[in-house]
C-alpha cells in the first residue's frame, strides 16, 4: 500500500469474489480548507476520520466532521473512526472507551491503528470496504425493488474520502510509509 504520492491512491480489492476499486483521496485537513470539504466528499461512499489518541483536540475535530458528514450525506456514507498513534499508547489522551462509545452512537466503526508500525490499517480498510459494498448492494436492491430502472448489479466503484483529521498527527493513515 505504498503510493507515489501520499494524497491519492487507487486500490483494487477482491472481496467475497467481487472486484472493488477503491479510490482513496486525501483531503486537506487545515481549518482554512474546511469549507472545501463538500467538494471532496460529495458522492463518496465512505470516510475514514482519523484522530490522534494523544490529542484530545483532534478527537473533537472528528466529532465535527462526523456531524457534518451525517448532515450532508445521511446514512449513505460509511464512517470509520481511526485512533492513530497507538505506538504512543503511554501518551494517550483520548480514552478508548470514550471513542468507541461515540462511534457506536453515530453508527461508525472504530479502529485503533499505528501508521508508523503499520498496525490496523489493513483491517480498517477491509472492514470499510465490506461495509460500503453492503450499503451499495442494499441501495441497488432498494432501487430495483422500487421499480426504478435498475443500475448495474455488480459492485460499483467505491469512492472513499479519507478525511485525515488532526494535522498534528502528521502521518498519513491510508498509506504505510
Amino acid at each position: 500500500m505504498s503510493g507515489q504520492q501520499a494524497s491519492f491512491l487507487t486500490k483494487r480489492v477482491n472481496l467475497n469474489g467481487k472486484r472493488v476499486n477503491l479510490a482513496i483521496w486525501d483531503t486537506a485537513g487545515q481549518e482554512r480548507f474546511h469549507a472545501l470539504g463538500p467538494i471532496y466528499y460529495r458522492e463518496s461512499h465512505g470516510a475514514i476520520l482519523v484522530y490522534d489518541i494523544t490529542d484530545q483536540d483532534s478527537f473533537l475535530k472528528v466529532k465535527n466532521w462526523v456531524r457534518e458528514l451525517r448532515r450532508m450525506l445521511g446514512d449513505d456514507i460509511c464512517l470509520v473512526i481511526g485512533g492513530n498513534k497507538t505506538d504512543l499508547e503511554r501518551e494517550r489522551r483520548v480514552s478508548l472507551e470514550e471513542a468507541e462509545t461515540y462511534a457506536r452512537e453515530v453508527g461508525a466503526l472504530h479502529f485503533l491503528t499505528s501508521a508508523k508500525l503499520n498496525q490496523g490499517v489493513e483491517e480498517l480498510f477491509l472492514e470499510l470496504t465490506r461495509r460500503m459494498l453492503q450499503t451499495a448492494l442494499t441501495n441497488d436492491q432498494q432501487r430495483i425493488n422500487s421499480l426504478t430502472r435498475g443500475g448495474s448489479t455488480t459492485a460499483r466503484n467505491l469512492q472513499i474520502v479519507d478525511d485525515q483529521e488532526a494535522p498534528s498527527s502528521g502521518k498519513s493513515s491510508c498509506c504505510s510509509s
Partner: protein
Amino acid sequence: MSGSSDNGSSSAWTGTRLHIKEGELQCVRGCGFYGNPAWEGHCSKCYKDHLAQTQQRKTVFHPSLKLRNKVSRSVSDVSDFTSSATSIMSRKFDRFEEKRRQQLDKKTKVVKSIFRKSQGKEGSKAGEASRLVRQLSMESQGAGQQYNEFLKTLSKDVQCGVSKLINTFLEKMLRVVEFQSVDECSEQIQDFYTTMNDMITQQPVYIGLEQEQIDKINELTERYITTRLYKPLIITVNAVCEEKDLAIQNRIRSLAWISSQHLECGVEESSQEVKETLDLVITELLEMDSKRVPSDKLQCLVSAAHHVLQVLKQSRSGVPASADDFLPAMIYCVLQANPPLLHSNISFITYFSQQRSLQSGEAGYFFTNLCCAVAFIEHVTAQSLGLTEDEYERYMTGLALPPHALDGDAWLCEGMRVMLQNLKTLDDLQAKMDHLVTHSDELMQEMDELQESVSEQVTSVLENNPLTIHPRRKVAIDEELQASSLLPSPLTPEIPPLSPDIKAAQQSLSFLQQLGDGGSQTNSPDLPDASTVASKSTSRTTSDFMGSEADLLSLGVDPEEPDSSIHGLTGLLGSDIDLLGPDADALEAESGMLGSSSGLPDLIGPVRSTEGSRNHNYLNLDEIGSAQGMFALNQPFQSAKIQNNTQYSIPPTKNEKHLSGTLSGQDSLLYSGFTIQGGKIPSIACETGNTHSLSSPLEPPQSCSADPLSPPLTGSQPALPPPLIPSIPGERQEASATGQKDSQKKGDALDKVCDVLGDIVETFDSLL
C-alpha cells in the same frame, strides 16, 4: 377480454382512444415494465434488445461512410426542423443570438475562441440558410477516424451496434443541442454515456469485450461526441459561465499579492528549479483551455498536478506531499497561472466528461482539487490567509505590499525574471568568452614563439651557412662573367704593344707598384687587416708579375726610341692606369656590393674611373714633365698621399657605410671574398676602363704632342684632381697595380672566375 385489450393496446398508440388501461402502457413484450410509444411500445430494455436484433439483421457497411451520411442527413433534418418550427425558432433565436454576441466579446480573449466563433458562425448560417452542407472540422474528422479505426479491431456486431447507437444519438443531439440548456445537454450526454456503457457491458453481443476495450470505447465515445458537439456545447457553457469566468479572473488578479507564505504551501519561490517547474504547471493549466475533449483537458490538469507535486518535492527535499500540502500548492499555482475561462472549462468537464472518470482515478482527484482551489480563491478571506481584516484590505486595495513581497525576485514580473535569467546566461557566455580569449592569446603567443624560434633557426642557419650570400655574389660574378667574356679582346691587343714598349714603363710601373704598396699600406689602417693582407698579397703578386712582364717587355724596349717609349709608356700608363682606375672602382664596387647594392658602383664607378684616368694622366704628365719621372712621380703621389691622409676622412665613412650595410659577423666572409675576388676584379675594370683605354691612347699623343701644353694642363689639373682625389687614391694605386697584374693575368682570372662559378653552381645546387 385479454385479446381485445391486446388489440386495444395496439391501437392505443394511434391516440384515438382517450382512456388507456394500465396494461396498454406496459411493454409489448410483456416483461412487466412500462412501454413507451417512442420505443415502439417497448420498455427501454426490451427496446435495446429489439434494436440490437434489428441491427444484427442489417448489412454492415463502412462506418465512416455511414457517419458522413448521417451528418448530411442530420443537417438537413436540422434545417427541416428549423423551417417547420419557426415559432420555436424565433423564441430560441434570441437566446442564440445572445450567446453569439457573448461569444463575440470573448473572441479577443483567447485565440481558440476565435476558432470556435468562426465555427459558430458557420453553424448558424447552415442552420438558417438550411441549404449549406456543413463541413466537418478537422477535429471531428480526426475523432471519427480514430473511433472507426478502433471499432475495426472489434467484431462486426460490436462495430455496428456502437456506431448505430452513437449516430442515432448524434443525430438527435445535433438537432436539438443549440436550443437546449447546458443542464439538458449534459443530462442527455451523461445518459448516453450510461446507455453506451450499459450496452457494451451487459448485452450478450458484447460479452467478449475486455475491460480495456470497454474503457477504450467509453473514452472514444466521449471524445467523438464532445468533439462533434463541441461548438454548440462550449457556446452554451461559455454563455452560462461568462460572468463567473470574468469574476474569477479579476479575483485572481486582485489576489496577485498572495505568496506561498500566506498559503503555507511550502513552495520555495526563490529557487530557480522550483520556478522552472512552476512555469510548467502554469503552461499546462493554460493549455487546458485549448483542448476540446474533457478527457484531454483532464489530462492537462493531471500533468499540471504532477508538476505541482514535483514543485513540492523540490521545495521540501523529497518528502512525499499529502493533501495538506498539495491543495495550497495547487491554489498557489492557479493564482500564478490565472487560466482563461477557468469556470467554463471546469463546467465543461463537469457536464460532459464521463462521471466515472471524475469520481475516481487521479484525474478525478486532481479535478476535485482544482475545484477546491477555485472555490478557495473565490471565497478567500483574511482569516483563511492568516491575516487581520485590516491587512487584508490594504493588500487587496493595493495600499500595501506584504513585507516579504520584495524578497528575492519572486515578485518580479515575468519579463524581469527572464531578463535576470538572460543576464545569468550572458555572464556564463562572458566567462566562456574570456576563457576562449585567454586560450586564443596563449595560442597566439605560442605561434609567435614558434615563429621566433623558426626565424631564429633560420637566421642561425643563415649565419652558419655562408652560402646564403652567394646569390648576391652571383650578381657581381655575372658582371664579372660578362666582363671576362669581354676581357680578352681589349687586353690581348694591349700586350703586344706593351711588349715592344719601354722598360722604363715597367720600371715606372714597378715604382708605382711600390708606391701603391706604400699607399695601400698607409691607407690600409682604415681597412681591416685582412684587406691589407689581401692588398699586400695582390701587390706582391703584381710586383712579381711586373717583374716577369718587365722581362718580357725588356726585349722590345731597347730598339724603341725613348720618346716613343715615353709616349708608349705614357700611353701604356694611361691605358693601364685607366684600366686600374676602374679596378679601384671595381674594388670599391666590390666592397660596395658586399655592403648594400650593385647600384653604388654604377654611380661612383664612372666618376672614379674618370678620376683615375685624370689622376694618372696627371701623373703621366708629371712623369713626362720630369725627365726621369721617378722623383717627379714621387711628388704628386706624396701629395696624393697627403691628400689622401687629409681627405681620407671621407672614405672611411663610406667604408663604414658599406660595412654597416653588410651583415655583421660576415665581415670575415666579406674579406675572404674580397681577397678571393681580388684576382677577378680586373674583369669589371676592363669593361669600364675600355673606353678610357681606347680614349687614353688617343689622348696621350695629343698631350705628348702638346707637351708644351702640359703646363697649362698641369696648371689646370691641380684644379681638377684635388676634388677628384678624395676617392681613395691609395686604393686606386693599389688597385692599379692589381689591375695591371690582372690585365695580364686574365687567363688566371678566367680560371678563377670559372672556379668561383663552379663553386657558386655547387652552392646553388646544394641550396636548391
